């Protein structure tokens, strides 16, 4: 069970001969993604500053790249790829659902509080 790893990433686009090789391949990919993030973070291209769904496009790119990195860490380093469907879904979907829910509520509320401070007319000291 432990020995037979699935040795392909990118949906079979890239196949490796051994598990060690796959690990180095994933490291190269993760470093590449981090390098893109750092370069974008230092130069902050003007063209990526447009707002998409209330947030800068650049920030969306950062978040998506982070999730991509998280996926490869969990799937290849933590061997989620080799676990059974049941375990994988129990761990991953539970977490994703709860995190999305929590993030949505808190960010929504934070935006509301900002609006009250910014444009509201509530007096706190009567």
């Amino acid at each position: 069970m432990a020995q037979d790893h699935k040795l392909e990433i990118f949906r079979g686009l890239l196949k490796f001969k051994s598990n060690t090789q796959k690990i180095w391949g994933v490291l190269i990919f993760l470093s590449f993604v981090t390098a893109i993030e750092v370069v974008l973070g230092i130069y902050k291209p003007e063209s990526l500053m447009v707002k998409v769904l209330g947030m800068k496009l650049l920030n969306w790119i950062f978040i998506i790249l982070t999730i991509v990195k998280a996926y490869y860490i969990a799937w290849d380093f933590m061997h989620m790829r080799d676990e059974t469907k049941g375990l994988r879904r129990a761990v991953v979907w539970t977490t994703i659902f709860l995190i999305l829910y929590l993030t949505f509520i808190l960010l929504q509320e934070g935006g509301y509080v900002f609006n009250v401070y910014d444009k509201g007319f509530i007096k706190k000291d009567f």
Partner: protein
Amino acid sequence: MSTTVVTSEAEGKTWGGGNEPLKASYGKMMMWFFIVSDALTFSGFLAAYGFSRFKFIDAWPIADEVFTHVPFLHGHELPMIYVAFMTFVLIMSSVTMVLAVDAGHHLNKAKVTLYMFLTIIGGLIFVGSQAWEWATFIKGDYGAVETKGGNILQFVDADGHRVALRDFAVAGEHERVQQERKNGLWFVGEGSLPTYTVEDVIHGFEANSNLLVRTQYLTEDGQKTVLSREESLKQLKANGKLVVEGANLQHNEYGSPLFADFFFFITGFHGFHVFSGVVLNIIIFFNVVLGTYEKRKSYEMVEKVGLYWHFVDLVWVFVFTFFYLV
């Protein structure tokens, strides 16, 4: 007794124990469930950070201006470089960990030992870097003046470059002496006093006509608002209350104190995880060296502690994004 044995055999031993429907051992599965709950704790903290940031969306410090230092390269503005290095160290130690797990599958004791050792070194480098990062953050860089309302006024020259307090303020005669427990009330102490008083800063500001005040509010294009000379003087004289150098839980020269609070709390909590991960790795390392798993013919403990170590890396990927990039 005999009847139970017969029934369990008849049912294919479904309820006889020892079943692994998820093809994972008890220990590994429990590690996964611990990781789920820890992931939720971390996301709770990060979501709370997001809440506070959305609450002060127009006045949040710009991370690129806060974390600009690299050890041994004093005076250079190099945003992101050092954190990128820390991220790389942690990913690298994750790689050596997974290589240790892989060597464990082949029951190769020498390789497991080597890779575990490298993982521990990587973890120590990371924790050390984080300590350095904290020290730099606490010490501060340019200094600022806090207003009555708790806002931060920073100083820039005509070109918009930051100017440090030590470059223009001259420390005058101080009547106020830091109170220590040994003089005055024995049970009351106080933190170290700032180098300059607000009066020193105002005198220095008046003497240098090219200085301007920068508030913590962001303009349309995400830059901090710079006030005109008259407005700067007015703000400083009317509202300046406290000189802030560096950051602690109450005051923060970079902007909102909440930024510092969350920085200390979240990176501190993560650093604590890395630290305990290193301790666990060391314990497992010695078990490997002593041949405990060799005798057991199974290196599953390395796999379990590996799961935890990768999780710490996974969390850092998110902390990195939300504190330094976004």
